[in-house]
């Protein structure tokens, strides 16, 4: 145990090991943060949610921080609501049971791109007579544009860009661009815009609530995808999933490989022969194809894929290298001594043979983590990711199938790939350093 401790202390002589440890530590922190910040059920609800969850977000929006690096400033998104007062409103009762609502939101539009869309969501209560709404748009140069007058139902959505009457009135196809342009030059106009909502209800107790959703070109820290989902959810949750998959798969396969190799060498005879034959058969089986088949035909659940991965990774070349070392260890004196005092076979395997191998197990275990992490991402890229879990691979798949590279949504593909790359490199560097520490033959070189 002391030797193990000493070896681990040597890690700090290797800069790459320090970097690797640092990355692994950060990943664990990220994973814990993700699980605390967004509990599992909430993450699934958000990831599987459609328009009802994500209606406030624009589609294909880059992260908001790109505005710091880009000369052209992209419009940021926001949403305001009369319920929480972020959309200021005043409700004044009038004569004969009628009431008037005046709500307005003014915002400073200081960007170089047009927003994607503007939408108003109304909810109202009434018994028979529908409330009436009129919308006005106040531009920085003092014009007032009449948008629409309409009666609203209990749940009513007004989409600026799709109002055909407004299109004819403004003589344009692109209402959003027209609303934010100088009518003379046709170019984008910066400044203070205001949306004015005037409503009338015709019954006592009748109410109107409005939500103004402004879809810019950028959103949040991570941006959004084709389904308006905030990419922060899968980016955060990708960390625990990747760590879980990588660690369980590498731990499971290498520990099982070692145990099986130890059992085979100790009992020798037909047990050993059987293990050797299974290893040769496993060599013939197409690993990736079988995983693809299981994913396509049977189940995409991450647990099934994890189990299959471990099962297929046990009987590989590693079993042969473990075996050759066990064959040497088997002849050593302390095993002889154990046998002499009458230790049982299983006692020798688990208490004498295997503990001797743990230092050799560690580097291989750490080094094989990236392969499994990337395997999960590869399967996701082929469309065989877990249908429920948000993972980094799923983001890449969504981005790839939506032509992110082709259409210039680079953030979408870069965020998960950079995270995956750092994870893979972190474990690989740590594994390399461990290999040099525990493998004396390499240390001399």
């Amino acid at each position, binding site marked *: 145990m002391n030797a193990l401790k000493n070896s681990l202390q040597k890690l700090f002589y290797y800069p790459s090991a320090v970097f690797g440890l640092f990355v692994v530590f950060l990943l664990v922190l990220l994973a814990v943060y993700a699980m605390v910040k967004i509990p599992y059920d909430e993450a699934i609800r958000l990831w599987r949610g459609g328009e009802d969850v994500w209606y406030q977000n624009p589609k294909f929006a880059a992260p908001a921080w790109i505005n710091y690096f880009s000369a052209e400033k992209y419009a940021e998104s926001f949403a305001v609501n009369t319920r929480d007062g972020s959309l200021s409103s005043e409700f004044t009762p009038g004569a004969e049971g009628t009431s008037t609502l005046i709500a307005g939101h003014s915002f400073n539009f200081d960007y170089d791109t047009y927003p994607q869309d503007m939408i108003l969501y109304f909810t109202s209560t009434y018994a028979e007579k529908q409330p009436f709404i009129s919308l006005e748009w106040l531009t920085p140069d003092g014009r007032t544009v009449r948008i629409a007058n309409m009666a609203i139902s209990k749940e009513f959505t007004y989409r600026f860009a799709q109002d055909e009457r407004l299109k004819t009135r403004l003589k344009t196809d692109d209402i959003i661009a027209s609303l934010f342009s100088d009518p003379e030059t046709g170019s984008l106009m910066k400044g203070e815009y205001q949306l004015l909502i005037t409503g009338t209800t015709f019954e006592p107790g009748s109410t109107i609530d409005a939500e103004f959703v402004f879809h810019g070109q950028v959103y949040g820290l991570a941006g959004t995808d084709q389904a308006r989902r905030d990419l922060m959810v899968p980016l955060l949750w990708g960390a625990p999933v990747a760590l879980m998959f990588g660690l369980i798969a590498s731990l499971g396969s290498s520990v099982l490989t070692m145990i099986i190799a130890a059992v085979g060498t100790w009992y020798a005879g037909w047990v050993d022969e059987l293990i050797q034959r299974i290893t040769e058969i496993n060599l*013939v089986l197409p690993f990736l194809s079988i995983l693809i088949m299981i994913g396509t*035909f049977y189940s995409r659940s991450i647990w099934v894929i994890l189990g299959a991965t471990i099962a297929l990774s046990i009987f590989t070349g590693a079993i*042969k290298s473990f075996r050759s070392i066990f064959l040497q260890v088997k002849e050593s004196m302390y095993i002889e001594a154990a046998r002499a005092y009458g230790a049982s076979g299983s006692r020798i395997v688990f208490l004498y043979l295997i503990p001797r191998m743990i230092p050799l197990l560690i580097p291989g275990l750490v080094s094989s983590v990236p392969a499994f992490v990337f395997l999960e991402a590869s399967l996701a890229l082929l469309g065989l990711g877990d249908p429920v879990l948000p993972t980094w691979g799923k983001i890449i798949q969504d981005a790839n199938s939506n032509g992110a590279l082709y259409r210039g949504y680079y953030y979408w593909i870069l965020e998960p790939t950079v995270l995956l790359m750092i994870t893979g490199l972190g474990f690989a560097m740590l594994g390399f350093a461990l290999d040099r520490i525990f493998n004396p033959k390499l240390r001399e*070189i």
Partner: protein
Amino acid sequence: MTIAVQPASENSVAPKVSARASTFLRVSRYVVVRVLTLFVTVVIGIYLTIVIANMGGFVDTIMKGEIRDRVTQTIINNPSYQSMEPEVRQQLIQDTIAAEEERRGLNVPIAVRNVRYLSNALTLNLGRAHNMTSDSGSKQVRLILLERLPATLLLMGISQLFLFFSSILLALNLSRHYGNFWDKLVVTLSPTSAVPPWFYGIFLILIFAALLKVLPFGGMVDSPPPSNPLDYSLSLLKHLALPTLSLVLSSFFLSIYNYRTFFLIYSSEDYVDMAKAKGLPSRDVERKYILRPTLPNIITNFALLIISLWTGATITETVFLWPGLGRTLFQAIGLYDIPIIVGSTIIYAYLLAMTVFLLDFMYSLVDPRVKVGG
């Protein structure tokens, strides 16, 4: 990367007279046993693949449902059948479904079908695909695979051969200048090989196709393909650049590092020091004293490389839309096309078995300590 054949050396003290006859006997007995065990291995491996490829009959249910849907739709939507009596039309649907199931062999019990697949596969009678067709319109599995083979051979051949030779040469060079800047650089960069090729592919597409717009996003030739052979090869080269580069990049540094470490271990042997002390030129030391004993391992790696040419690179081919075998296999799985899955697996298995078998003899040729069947 170590493979099943670990040649054992033995000092047999056979009488000189019968040495030849006993060698022949030993070798032939060895060959028979080895071929038999390898064949049994292949049979079991293929049988397992077949069982997995139809998930113990689960895929049958999917296929039967698909046939039922498709046949019912075609017959109901066919205007010439509209005037038929409902019962007659129902009968027609049932008959067509039965015929279609018979064509796919779905009316035979799964166990029988598995054995049939197995014996067809082992005799390389690859049969006809269920759903996929080759570009020339054939349903023959053999033709479909042969049509995709050149694309995979081209991509994998160029990248793997380049990788193999360049890393051995560079590694030899580095082992000579152990500890210099380049050596340290390779050691530092070797963890980059933890990242798979398709990952580099995405970055390369981003840089060269999306940002710089100098190379295509994917595919194998321009569309429509140029008729002039020169233009055709230029277009091919342009499309080949990124996938090849990503395959090479992803294993380049680790490959050099492995060979370098390997050469270093062998160059620290006493006989190498002895040779140097004798004053042999470093070229001779390298060739005769360092490369020679590492030859079995280098040959093993080369043999595995040749096999990898056949399997292709499924995900890299998918990312680059490269029409190779790896992507075909992925498509076949998506279409439940068991004959293609089995066909490509059996060829891989045979190639592997043959390589393992041949390697035994190769070892005895390059290493005098090794005796076949010893």
